[in-house]
């Protein structure tokens, strides 16, 4: 089974703070994704990538940047964090975008 590791698992920051969420997958999957999960909204796609150096905009990209440095590593950057970005963030990887393997999630609180 695909292994997707997210770090940190929990993060607390203040409004205006700078946050980087990390994701690493060890199965050489082409596709990687960042979703946020909020009650009443389900899973919403922030950014995704289908290879090192590639970036695609998802449905809720405002306030987020992403970078895919290698086949394994995908980062989500919040440069000026706001309380509205308090959420549970999931990274996922996929070989062919049809089946997603999710990491354990990062819970972010912006105070």
């Amino acid at each position, binding site marked *: 089974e695909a292994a997707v590791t997210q770090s940190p698992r929990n993060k607390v920051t203040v409004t205006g703070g700078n946050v980087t969420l990390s994701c690493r997958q060890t199965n050489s999957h082409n596709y990687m994704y960042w979703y946020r999960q909020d009650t009443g*909204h389900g899973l919403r*796609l922030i950014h995704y990538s289908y290879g090192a150096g590639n970036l695609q905009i998802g449905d809720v990209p405002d306030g987020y940047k992403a970078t895919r440095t290698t086949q394994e590593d995908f980062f989500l950057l919040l440069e000026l964090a706001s309380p509205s970005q308090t959420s549970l963030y999931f990274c996922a990887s996929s070989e062919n975008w049809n*089946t997603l393997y999710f990491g354990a999630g990062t819970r972010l609180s912006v105070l």
Partner: protein
Amino acid sequence: QQQVRQSPQSLTVWEGETTILNCSYEDSTFDYFPWYRQFPGKSPALLIAISLVSNKKEDGRFTIFFNKREKKLSLHITDSQPGDSATYFCAASYQGGRALIFGTGTTVSVSP
């Protein structure tokens, strides 16, 4: 706007009953519809999926029924068990889309 809609938001059933979860979509270009299950405190995982070429997909106690004309799907869980208590997400994608769009989810509670 929500491209994939689910109902109800939550429901409670008794052990042994059939649970029915509903999903609808607007985009006619969607052609692949997976359902993901998320247990409390865990991450979502693929449960079962159907494509546009099928009207029905069965896997054990889980069955997807697909009405293409009305753009509606339903997930039926027969003989529901307490271990089925989870949140179920319907998702959709279109050929070449390279990403899944998820619905808001339905939280199921099965009482013994």
